[in-house]
């Protein structure tokens, strides 16, 4: 009995507030836009009994999904989200690896402090961390002021409201997610392996490529997924740092819902976004599973 309650309470909570809402999205994505409250048809009418349910299902169709393929805004937005997420993940890796490497090579008594310094930004507001770059990158911003006063440029660079600003924002906010798994992999590494490689005649750089890098592969893969997956649906960074030309699907969904008030199309956008995300999520799960088996 007690076990039943233990299972039932969180189970029903998640069914009611996670699964059912998602089924509603799925249903509305198959509905038609209407000038009504709520702004879509059909609505399920249980009072009409079985006939009502049949009529309800008969009216569902894939029209919104067809619409998504005809207007090139949407597929361009999906492609551009994937591209931005891909490039940003790569850039984050390049920035994070030397930091993780430096942390793993630091003396033991520094490590707790270094760990805390990496985690601290994660606890600070995401919104504020993105906002802090607006002042740096704007035309009158601190970066342009610095470069102008050094005489390196003669007129301010336009960085804010471009894709470059979006990349900087993503690298900055997701950096801890990349550093931590790579650091965890490097930290476990046995230093004598490197010594052995050098004794056998490897230069430092070759030893790094042949020993250290392959051993940190699992950390790199985990970190890349942890950055790539949430970046695809990102809304705050492209809206705040990107320009009108920055297309990302999270932003499109938001605008479709709040500005155009087109619920069925917004729902269809959400369903496709989820379908796209399933591939990297499954790959990530598999990778984690494999690692756990290798360790356990």
């Amino acid at each position: 009995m007690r076990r039943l309650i233990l299972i039932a309470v969180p189970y029903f909570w998640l069914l009611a507030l996670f699964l059912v809402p998602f089924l509603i999205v799925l249903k509305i994505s198959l509905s038609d836009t209407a000038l009504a409250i709520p702004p879509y048809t059909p609505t399920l009418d249980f009072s009409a009994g079985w006939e009502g349910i049949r009529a309800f299902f008969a009216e569902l169709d894939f029209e919104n999904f067809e619409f998504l393929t005809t207007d090139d805004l949407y597929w361009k937005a999906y492609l551009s989200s994937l591209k931005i997420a891909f490039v940003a993940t790569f850039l984050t890796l390049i920035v994070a690896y030397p930091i993780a490497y430096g942390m793993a090579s630091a003396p033991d008594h520094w490590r707790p402090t270094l760990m805390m310094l990496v985690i601290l930004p994660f606890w600070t507001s995401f919104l504020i961390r993105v906002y802090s770059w607006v002042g740096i990158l704007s035309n009158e911003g601190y970066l342009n002021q610095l470069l102008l006063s050094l005489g390196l440029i003669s007129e301010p660079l336009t960085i804010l409201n471009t894709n470059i600003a979006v990349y900087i924002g993503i690298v900055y906010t997701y950096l801890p997610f990349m550093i931590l798994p790579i650091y965890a992999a490097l930290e476990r590494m046995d230093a004598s392996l490197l010594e052995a490689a050098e004794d056998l005649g490897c230069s430092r750089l070759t030893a790094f490529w042949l020993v250290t890098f392959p051993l940190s592969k699992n950390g790199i893969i985990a970190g890349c997924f942890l950055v790539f997956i949430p970046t695809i649906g990102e809304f705050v960074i492209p809206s705040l740092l990107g320009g009108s030309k920055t297309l990302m699907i999270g932003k499109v969904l938001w605008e479709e819902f709040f500005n155009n008030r087109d619920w069925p199309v917004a729902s269809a956008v959400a369903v496709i976004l989820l379908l796209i995300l399933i591939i990297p999520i499954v790959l990530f799960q598999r990778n984690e599973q494999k690692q756990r088996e290798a360790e356990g």
Partner: protein
Amino acid sequence: MRRVTWFNATSLTLGFAFLYLPMVILIIYSFNAGKLVTVWAGFSTRWYGELLQNQAFLDAAWVTVKVAVLSSSIATVLGTMAALVLVRSGRFAGRTLFSGMIYAPLVMPEVITGLSLLLLFIGLNIDRGVLTIVLAHTTFSMCYVSVVVSSRLVSFDQSLEEAALDLGCSQMQAFFLVTLPIIAPAVISGWLLAFTLSLDDLVIASFTAGPSSTTLPIKIWSSIRLGLSPEINALSTLMISVVTVGVISASLISKRSSLKRQADERAAGT
């Protein structure tokens, strides 16, 4: 791997400069006297004064704290229950669905979670307000809590609880007197994580909030969309300070308690 070379030292310095410089600049310029955020016009605490007199910000802060305390507390209870189910309950009908529903919200884009909950609340005709934000935040943060707590439960020595049962405890007593105190650090970090996630959330709150329940991130968002604002710099500085003090003291406390535990274990050993 124990080599401090010039390369490692530079990469650490540059890396941490990149992580912290933007926030340091934000903090410095929050004491700027001028209205133009990027032009330094002397030191002043003017914007802090204006911020503390801005009723809209104070109201939003109060709503945010209310939502965060309520949602993280409910999420801690539900998340701990879910962790117990995941780690201990073995097989039951619908287990795969259950663990799927625990992990899915962790990777679900916020825009989709927000949209789906909004459509649910509208479908059920629930007025949007503090209650709906609390329900939304509880749902995604309970999943984070359950991941944190279940990673601790996996390494929990079940024989301790069995000993308590043998000595005449009821199941409930055994849980509250033996298990809970031992997994308490994980439960507390779960609560802190849920609390921070709730304080921080803009997207899901924007979908589920009503006009009378603006949270701080929603308020910040509507001001910064129009550009830089000196009041937001002041507010950011306050939030960064609170978090820094919180994280540093939490890590000092956990370090002290682990040192104390080591000392106790040593004392018990002799």
